[in-house]
């Protein structure tokens, strides 16, 4: 009866001070349409951040609300649902037990996402919208303000440059500075001073000036509605006007601000840190205009789901974001060069030829590219210890769109591009069996590709790769002497043979210029 091309999806998000359930209809024609939005105020974060655990009462309340959500989900006869939780369940020590309790009582298995996953999904909620690519076309900063931190993502010429997590969250700021026995006015001052200091570090390290700032987070829609009475979704306001308004209301008491913004909570403790973050972020990136999309993380969960299940047409290329972040990172460590591009192409070529032999997918192909782009960045720190350094650089960088596991796979693939692969037992603490195999396969491919451009001079052209029997035949034309490559090739290919049971053979056709 229900026509097949409409998919009903439920997204639940457990946040620092709210649990929310959104119901969506996903279809190719109408894309993603929100049909219900249910929010329940519950300050889990307060306890989670201060005591590092969730007590009985909080779990009880959470479970009872989630059971209600479960009924609502059934009521809509949804096809699927996903439940995400962030910082609240990430930062508590009893998370395992809480999750188990929730599962036993509600049947929900919750996916606890880490910061980068969280930011990426949040980012997807905006980037998945039609019109987003127009906003970032020039340059833009997308800031996502949460309870525990703020993510700043910079775009230049439509490409993602960098994304950084700054430990400035509304709830964190308040927990840090509250109850110090200060007067209210000095509390305001402290909050602002703290924010400004933290942001200074960021702006000194990155080229931050942008045309637009996209602000995601609670209270932002309320503020923008006040700044511009007729503000409809997808409209921008002048930063000047935005900042002026916040400067005006920040002098008021929390009660007055809450009333001014028409908040449900008459004295919302997070509103002051939030608006001060908005203002100072907008100031520090010197944007001309402010854009506040009325989205929340649930929209991102839905978009993520729709994308994963190919229920909608993509409007934004998220893989491109990942590659451009990797390139920016590579540039940052002075390692970006023609060699990198060549290596990248070569690795992909080998990867594509071997589809049947490695059994890996599109995602791993992307990871291979990232590994290729970043494999050399360690030299910036130490020539001798380059692989180790590259590993650490990758592990401490945020690449929007990569999960922590994927990031680890990339880092290890780079490490074993040079070093000998450790036994699984040695790595089992860090990786599961499948991921270990991915690391091995990617690093083996990377190593072969690398061997072909040992001199970093891109001596070859017209590379043809094919598989014959148990051999991987690499045919190439060359203008120059490739004896170096030839010599080192055998040395580097042994590992490849071990992994794939395929022997790489290099066949050269020397081209003499007339």
């Amino acid at each position, binding site marked *: *009866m*229900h026509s097949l091309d409409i998919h009903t999806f439920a997204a639940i998000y457990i946040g620092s001070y709210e649990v929310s359930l959104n119901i969506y209809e996903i279809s190719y024609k109408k894309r993603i349409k929100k049909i219900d939005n249910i*929010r*329940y105020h519950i300050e889990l974060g307060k306890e989670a951040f201060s005591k590092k655990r969730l007590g009985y009462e909080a779990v009880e309340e959470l479970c009872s609300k989630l059971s209600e959500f479960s009924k609502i989900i059934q009521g809509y006869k949804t096809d699927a649902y996903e439940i995400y939780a962030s910082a609240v369940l990430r930062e508590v020590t009893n998370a395992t037990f809480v999750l188990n309790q929730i599962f036993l009582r509600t049947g929900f298995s919750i996916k606890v996402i880490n910061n980068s996953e969280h930011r990426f999904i949040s980012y997807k909620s905006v980037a998945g919208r039609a019109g987003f690519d127009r906003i970032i076309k020039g340059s833009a900063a997308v800031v996502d303000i949460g309870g525990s931190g703020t993510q700043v993502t910079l775009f230049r010429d439509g490409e993602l440059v960098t994304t950084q997590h700054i430990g400035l969250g509304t709830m964190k700021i308040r927990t840090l500075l509250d109850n110090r026995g200060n007067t209210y006015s000095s509390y305001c001052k402290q909050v602002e001073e703290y924010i400004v200091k933290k942001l200074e570090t960021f702006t000194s390290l990155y080229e931050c000036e942008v045309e637009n700032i996209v602000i995601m987070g609670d209270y932002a829609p309320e503020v923008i509605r006040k700044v511009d009475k007729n503000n409809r979704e997808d409209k921008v306001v002048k930063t000047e006007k935005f900042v002026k308004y916040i400067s005006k209301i920040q002098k008021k008491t929390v009660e007055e601000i809450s009333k001014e913004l028409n908040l449900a909570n008459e004295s919302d403790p997070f509103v002051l840190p939030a608006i001060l973050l908005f203002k100072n972020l907008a100031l520090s990136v010197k944007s001309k205009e402010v854009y506040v999309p009325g989205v929340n993380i649930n929209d991102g969960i839905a978009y993520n789901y729709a994308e994963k299940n190919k229920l909608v047409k993509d409007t934004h290329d998220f893989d491109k974001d990942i590659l451009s972040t990797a390139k920016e990172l590579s540039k940052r460590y002075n390692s970006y060069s023609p060699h990198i591009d060549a290596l990248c192409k070569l690795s992909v070529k080998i990867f594509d030829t071997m589809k049947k032999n490695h059994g890996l997918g599109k995602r791993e192909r992307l990871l291979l590219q990232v590994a290729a782009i970043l494999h050399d960045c360690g030299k910036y720190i130490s020539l001798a210890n380059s692989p180790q350094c590259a590993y650490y650089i990758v592990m401490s960088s945020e690449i929007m769109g990569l999960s922590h596991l994927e990031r680890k796979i990339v880092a290890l693939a780079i490490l074993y591009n040079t070093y000998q692969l450790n036994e699984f037992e040695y790595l089992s603490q860090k990786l599961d069996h499948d991921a270990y195999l991915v690391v091995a396969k990617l690093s083996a491919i990377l190593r072969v590709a690398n061997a072909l451009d040992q001199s970093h001079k891109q001596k070859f052209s017209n590379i043809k790769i094919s598989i014959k029997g148990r051999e991987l035949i690499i045919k190439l034309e060359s203008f120059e002497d490739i004896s170096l490559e030839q010599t080192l090739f055998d040395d580097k290919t042994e590992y490849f043979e071990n992994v794939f049971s395929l022997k790489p053979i290099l066949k050269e056709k020397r081209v003499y210029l007339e």
Partner: protein
Amino acid sequence: MEKIDFENSKYYENRELSWIKFDRRVLDEARDKNIPLLERLKFLSITSSNLDEFYMVRVASLKDMVNADYRKKDIAGMNATEQLAAINEATRELTKCQYSTFTNSLVPLLKQNKINLINEYEKLSAEQIEFVDNYFMDNVYPVLTPMAVDASRPFPLIRNKTLNIAALLKSNKEKENTMFATVQVPGGLNRLVTIPNEDGDEKTFILLEQIIERNLDKLFSNYEILCAYPYRVMRNADFTIDEDEASDLLLEIQNKLKLRQWGEAIRLEVENKIDDRLLGILRRELKLDNEEIFKIPGPIDLTVLSKLFDLKGYDNLRYEKYIPQQVPQINQDKNIFANIRDGDILIHHPYQSFQPVVDFIRQAAADPKVLAIKQTLYRVSGNSPIIRYLAQAAENGKQVTVLVELKARFDEEHNIVWAKKLERSGCHVIYGLVGLKTHSKIALVVRREEEGIRRYVHLGTGNYNDSTAKVYTDCGIFTCKESIGEDATAVFNMLSGYSEPLSWNELVLAPYWLRDKFLYLIKREINNVKNGLEGRIIAKMNSLCDKEIIKTLYMASAAGVKIDLVVRGICCLKVGIPGVSENITVRSIVGNFLEHSRIFYFFNGGEEDIFLGSADWMPRNLDRRVEIVFPVIDSKLKERVKHILDIELEDNVKARVLTFEGQYLKINRRGKKPINSQMIFCKEAKELVKKDSLSVGRVFIPTE
């Protein structure tokens, strides 16, 4: 020019006194010779039950204020004691008028029409006496509980609003002092008893208390009855539920119901000929002051007259019964949802039938595409089909959420019963909200269709009550507009305890947004006038007593906005005050149907805004209740709602216009054609159906 203080209390009328004027207007209907006799009787009965409720709620609450030494003055600058004094005077005036109407006009007229109402057993014939005495022994005696008061038996509890007979007794054996005794007239028996009469054509009734009075000696053998008179006590019934403390609202209300009868006595009605000694005992035992005692020149509690209204035969003494008409926009061959998809539907009750609203729930309950039904219920009828279908829907596996307002005045006991019934059948029942009464009338059906979820919404000005919908004038709208559907979902999420939505599309809700919205709309008219445009407001409601709204209306009037108000009941606004309210007119329509719809019209420089809703312009509606006011969006429906207002403003039969002196006067027609708005709406509703049935050609349609 001197600046006018629009808040000056002399510009406002006290709400209680204004209410008494309303009851007086109802009484005027009972005095109107152009109205059929039994209808007049009904109006008289209504004034009586109105007054009872007024006492139990309003007067009781004023007494509480006096007891609590609460000194704050009301909108008109009167404190509680002053108000009580004024009410007392006005009520006595009203009561006097009630009984003179009864005794001098209605009883003789009844007699003319061969209906005899005997109020004194002394007037019975011998044959009738025999019948009455037998009736007493067979039917009444077994259920009486006479109670005497002496040293070992304290004064019994006299239950609220019950009719009793007090008597003074003297023992036949001992030479004792007199003794007080009382007996309750059983509420379970019909108070009007038909007795035989000589002429077979006639009908004769006697009041039950007269039968008991006559036979009182049978209850107290060995005693001599010195005197016996009926009396009735009214007690404080307006309890405020302490919601902060009650962990379980339901339980709390059940407790309060038992307590209600124990409330303090605030009014005693006795027959005017009562013996002074007897009255003295009642006064002392019930702890009453003289001004709380009403001596009644006739039968106590005239609500009994409503029983006469249903008398078989005598159709000539009643209006012809009006049958609510079909709604031509609704094609009975299609289901209600298909009809709504064709366009918004406006229904004007009781001129048009309430059936589509019942059908809405009935069809939703059985429709396999329906996922959920959500509805607010305030007051429902005894055997409500809506409740039945909601229960059915739950049994059919739909998600049914019902918000049952337990705090609906005097309906608590009734509400708890059917709320439990709904719960048993699997509905999710929300028993009201802490601190707020849910007065909004909204029903939402969520349906899963080929194009996805579609929401059908019914919004109304009246309760989901199929019996009152035959008597109350109300408007309701069916729509499946997405903007309203989204809002409706948000309303129910909010009522279920979730956060409010970030913004509303169309609906305006009290307690958070409605007051500001109305003030904004009124001020917008002021601004338009200032900018040289026309300013115009027409508003129809049951009561107008919110100071801030009235003040803003005064400002609008002073600025030149033309304001016409149709206020059925209380109106604290005064008209015609120079510089304050010269541009405001107020009229009240009291007719055969109870005016109940709330309609708000704002000219808005030509881009007219019309709203319907559940809220009056009263503080309780704007601040302490969940109310919904919704815009009429469809232009055809807008025209129809405007037409309703236009006709009501033209009414010169049932409308009374408020004067500067504070009186409500009928309009001098001076030869103009009489316009009775309610009759016109009846006629129009019939014509709509006729026109519709004519336009459909009668042909056989071959199947293809």
